[in-house]
């Protein structure tokens, strides 16, 4: 964006920045190479989970509902951190592993102890455990995170991450699976998952367009 007023490039830059940040509904594409520290970034295809033509699937992270006052830059920062936490779970529980797979230890990084304990009782829903021993590869085909934020005083206090992981398996079981989860998170030296509501089952035959429309985030700030 260029300034029509030669004398006010800085103002135009600021204005442009605000417009960009607000007009692009805080769409944040992260992970893969963008986010950095996520354990799955850059190593997904090296884990041997998709031996037949590995392809990197980037996680699409969006800001959803924002309740309370939080500026656009902070929203994006929150979404990035939340996306990173979700990636760590997905990578540990599904993607970064050698299949067939029997071991599911340390698959809930970023979970609070109580949530991790509950998740271990839900291995069939929270990991690839149900299919793990009968597949040779597991390849993610879609990774999407929509982050609803509760904020007060320009600080994010809690978030709900609405997540979708679609993956495809090969081997004895060839199947397309969808893991839809809502993760409830608080910031405690990083975004920690203290609760979840997860659904894992066959990927719907209808495309994601329908729920994409429903899930698309809208910033509804309330101060």
């Amino acid at each position, binding site marked *: 964006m260029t300034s029509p007023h030669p004398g006010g490039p800085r103002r135009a830059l600021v204005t442009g920045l605000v417009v960009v940040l607000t007009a692009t509904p805080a769409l944040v594409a992260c992970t893969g190479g963008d986010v950095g520290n996520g354990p799955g970034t850059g190593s997904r295809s090296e884990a041997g989970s998709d031996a037949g033509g590995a392809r990197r699937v980037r996680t699409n992270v969006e800001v959803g509902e924002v309740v309370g006052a939080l500026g656009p830059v902070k929203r994006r920062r929150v979404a990035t951190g939340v996306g990173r936490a979700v990636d760590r779970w997905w990578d540990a529980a599904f993607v970064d592993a050698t299949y067939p797979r029997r071991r599911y230890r340390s698959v809930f990084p970023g979970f609070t102890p109580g949530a991790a304990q509950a998740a271990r009782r839900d291995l069939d829903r929270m990991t690839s455990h149900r299919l793990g021993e009968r597949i040779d590869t597991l390849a993610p085909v879609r990774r999407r995170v*929509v982050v609803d934020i509760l904020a007060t005083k320009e600080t994010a206090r*809690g978030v709900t991450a609405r997540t979708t992981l679609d993956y495809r398996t090969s081997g004895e079981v060839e199947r397309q699976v969808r893991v839809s989860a809502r993760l409830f998170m608080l910031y405690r030296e990083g975004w920690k998952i203290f609760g*979840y509501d997860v659904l894992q089952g066959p990927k719907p035959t209808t495309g994601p367009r329908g729920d994409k429309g429903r899930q698309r985030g809208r910033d509804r700030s309330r101060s």
Partner: protein
Amino acid sequence: MSTTRRTRATRATRTLRTGLLGAVLAGTALVVPSPEVAPDDVALVKAQRSGAVDLSPDVVWILAVGSDARPGQSMTRSRGDALQMVGIDTRTGAASAIGIPRDSFVSIPGYSANRVNAAMVLGGPELLGRTVAGMVGVQPDYVMVTRFPFFEDLVDDIGGITVSNPRRFSDSSLKPEGFAQGRIRLNGYGAMAFSRIRKTLAGGDFARSANQQRVLRGIGAEIRAKADRPGFVERGVLSVVQHMDTDLGPGELFRLARAVARVDPSRITTCVVGGAVATIRGMSVVRPNLTQARRLGAAARGDATLPRSC
């Protein structure tokens, strides 16, 4: 064939048991298939659903207080008019409410015996919590105080509630047209009036406490039904932050709200502590049945479930 059926039945039973929390949120019946026998080219594998919220302790007790503070008065130093001890078992989605008649004449720690609702005037929510704990034998983990106008806002913020009203009643000042018998929809004002009207109820304070529990049940059902909507719980928490007095930060309120949202309306049990009307020191009071109160507290302490018979 029979082996397959037994396998399916066993798996379904086990999943039903271990996935109880998931069933709370599921809302739809989900049947777990046997992956060993399901051909992969037939997409008859149904989804599995689970959920949990990490909240310590597993059974959390909240003393919900409706303060009768007038405008300009301190909400936390006024009488608590509505007193409900609410327990939530985050493992199972069960919840219970023990109604405390506001005129219950009880011991107040550090003070002479008085009506229970005087405890908040004397020592704030903390003393009220200890006083109620002395009655039911369960110490509340949280005391949440709101005043009635704010309560109206809270109910309006969640879009109103539905209650089951056992009999028609009215009040000349609060609700002249009255509340019809049956399932009725209430907005914030209606919920407030439904909770406050006492004089025209045959059961007086006890019946009012039961009505407050009907409102709580309606709130729980509304939250449960809408918790999946993006931003709904977040908006509710912000409303609580704005309308309630609590020493919990917004983050912890969010965690608590997520636990509340897991409450299964079909697993809510309620009782009102009984008692006898008496006059002490010129005051019309209720002599509460403390044996019953402690029995109810003991029954619900571990799993937030009250016995069928109060």
